[in-house]
């Protein structure tokens, strides 16, 4: 058993406490004084220095616990929980991140570890890394091939959003396992797929606008590049908004001078007496 110092949240307050980490689970001391078996844990998320553990309780209820601590302690907890919790798990090699924002990560390498698919996210765990990809942030899943040591091997490629960057990661394991993982992930993210009727509403120009937004271009630059008016672009934005492919981040104002404003400008431009 290992005892680690933490802060545990309850009813909005953080209480200095300890957690006992055992073979079968964790024991939260004050304020809960409760054992949580690993096999009852169905989800794990991390927000900065806080772990959010979701465990199933009686009568299909779910209880959430927030635990804060230093990175060293969080690493121990994450590794133990991910390797023992109630999740689809497999041993695999992964490369994460392989590409960030379209730029190849030059020192990316394959790491040996485990992949676990929990309720809200996919965890990659190795000796040195614990990376979580939220299922809501997954933008693309593909079964594809990648060259490794002069051999073309099957991999699952996952694209996801992280801090507004699109990140690509790869997972490598035996093909039969890979196909099961791919099917599992497709099923977990299928509600994000675009339906046929939605795709019909997008023409080539809308797709170009979406791509330019992806690349980071602002409205003015898009209008200039595609040689379209503000009104035409607004209509395309409306289509993309309706399909939930974009969200509004800023509303700009266009203004004109009032008579008071015109008077101000006239005075300001008058040569000094």
């Amino acid at each position, binding site marked *: 058993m290992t005892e680690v110092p933490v802060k545990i949240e309850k009813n909005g307050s953080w209480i200095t406490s300890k957690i006992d980490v055992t073979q079968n689970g964790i024991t939260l001391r004050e304020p809960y004084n409760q054992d949580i078996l690993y096999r009852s844990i169905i989800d794990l998320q991390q927000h900065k220095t806080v772990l959010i553990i979701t465990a199933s309780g009686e009568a299909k209820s779910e209880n959430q616990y927030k635990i804060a601590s230093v990175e060293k302690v969080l690493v121990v907890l994450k590794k133990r929980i991910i390797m023992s919790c109630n999740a689809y798990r497999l041993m695999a090699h992964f490369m994460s991140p*392989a*590409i960030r924002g*379209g730029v190849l990560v030059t020192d990316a390498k394959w790491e040996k570890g485990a992949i676990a698919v929990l309720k809200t996210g996919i965890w990659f765990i190795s000796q040195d890394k614990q990376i979580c990809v939220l299922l809501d942030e997954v933008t693309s899943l593909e079964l594809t091939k990648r*060259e490794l040591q002069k051999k073309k091997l099957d991999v699952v490629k996952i694209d996801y959003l992280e801090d507004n960057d*699109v990140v690509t990661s790869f997972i490598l394991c035996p093909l039969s396992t890979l196909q099961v993982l791919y099917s599992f992930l497709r099923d977990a993210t299928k509600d994000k797929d675009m339906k046929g009727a939605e795709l019909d509403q997008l023409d080539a120009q809308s797709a170009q606008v979406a*791509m330019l937004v992806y*690349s*980071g271009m602002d409205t003015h630059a898009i209008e200039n590049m595609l040689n379209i008016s503000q009104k035409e672009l607004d209509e395309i934005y409306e289509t993309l908004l309706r399909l939930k492919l974009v969200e509004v981040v800023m509303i700009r104002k266009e203004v004109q001078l009032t008579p008071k404003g015109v008077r101000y400008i006239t005075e300001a431009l008058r040569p000094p007496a």
Partner: protein
Amino acid sequence: MGRILIVDDTLFMRTLLKNILSSGGHDIVGEAEDGDVGVEKYKELKPDLVTMDVVMPKMNGIEALKAIKSLDTNAKVIMCTAVGQEQMVKLAIKSGARGYIVKPFQAPKVLEEIGNVLGA
């Protein structure tokens, strides 16, 4: 900031890159729509950096990269390719490319990569 030559067979990508790189303060000294034109423009313009598409009709990006490197061993070329072709990276790096970007790309990351290569 650098003098950059853009080589890509699609006008859309050339314009997009031009916008991104100009917004980052770089000077776009020329464009080419194929690898052979890119090599000729390199000789003429001697840019600080070239962005090079991989798949082009007459001369592909890898061949153009090799041709430019044979003219100037210090030439800085960043390869630009579509998703699914990133396996070309080994061939490109072996041929002397300094960096690699995958379409679709995001402007801040591209500018960061360009800055790293120019600064190196």
